[in-house]
């Protein structure tokens, strides 16, 4: 595994960010860092993917931070974050200026309606793929379904839903005394 310099890392992460139109997805990073450049192994990538999904915060930028840290330490993590997020934020703010001044004519408004509807279709399919890959046990399915119904149709505040579902999930998954006796690796 070769380790790129910070400048090279920043350039590649900026490119991944710029190429990820229509919503950032982890697959872009896999393609850029594992398949094309062989900077990372599949195993290392999957471990960072798990970290970024488990930890709070926007997934795509967290994945960039975890990968950047693995490639070049804390400096790599900082460069990765800025390179991934800043170009898109600048472009979005430029569009926001135009949009909020009413600079988009009615035709642009209709186009936005169409695209807003398309977003729903796209994320529905992407979510279905993640559901298929991530939900295996019955307990996981129940926890996910209860959470979805609570924040979606019921419209309950997300904080309370996460707190409640976490309490139930941890209570059901917490290691029992017999499991706690098995060796754990490091103390």
């Amino acid at each position, binding site marked *: 595994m070769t380790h790129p310099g910070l400048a090279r890392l920043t350039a590649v992460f900026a490119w991944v960010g710029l190429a*990820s139109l*229509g919503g*950032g997805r982890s697959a872009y990073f896999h393609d850029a860092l594992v398949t094309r450049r062989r900077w990372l192994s599949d195993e290392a990538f999957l471990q960072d993917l798990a*970290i970024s*999904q*488990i930890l*709070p*915060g*926007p*997934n*795509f*930028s967290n994945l960039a931070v*975890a990968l950047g*840290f693995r490639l070049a330490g*804390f400096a790599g993590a900082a460069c990765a*974050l800025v390179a*991934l997020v800043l*170009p*898109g*934020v600048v*472009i*979005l*703010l430029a*569009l*926001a*200026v135009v*949009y*909020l001044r009413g600079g988009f004519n009615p035709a642009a408004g*209709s*186009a*936005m*309606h169409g*695209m807003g*509807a398309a977003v*729903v*279709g*796209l*994320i*529905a*399919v*992407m*979510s279905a793929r993640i*559901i298929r890959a*991530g939900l295996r046990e019955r307990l*996981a399915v129940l*926890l*996910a*379904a209860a*959470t979805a119904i*609570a*924040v*979606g149709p019921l*419209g309950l505040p997300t904080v309370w839903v*996460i707190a409640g579902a976490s309490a139930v*999930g*941890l209570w059901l*998954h917490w290691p029992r005394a017999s499991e706690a006796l*098995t060796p*754990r690796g*490091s103390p």
Partner: protein
Amino acid sequence: MDLLRMSWTFLWLSFLCIGGGLGVIPELERQSVTVHHWLTAREFLDGYTLAQLTPGPNMKVAAFIGYRAHGLAGGLLAAFAMFVPPAIVTAVVAHRWRRIRGRAWAMAVERTLAPIGIGLMAGGVYTLARSAIHDTFTAGIAVAAALALALRPVPPIAVMLAAGIAGWLFR
């Protein structure tokens, strides 16, 4: 004062993004539209669409909301609050992950948070669908976009552009 409150709101919202930004969309909309009136529901959806259309993570929609409420400073501060604090946590945990993940309690946390993240994501799809789909035309576009992505490996941006053209031509 409201600028501070907004930064604080986005900061704690950023820590609710488990399983991707989609999970926090319902609460982000509730806080921004219903609770604090930083923008209208229509603007929220358009901002989210713009965030999808532009490169990078979708959660940069925070910058759009911040800009709408407080101009350039608001936009940049909102993006900072949304991305930087969780990034610091991620870097620190990535630093220690190898030692943490072998433990039994870490497995319990992993097995609990993964399905909750997926559930939040699914709830986010519902919330977005309710604001974006209001007639057969928009429903048709959503279904067509889903079919296009499900059946062929088309880039999402191509689907978005096609839907934009369809909206422009037929509405």
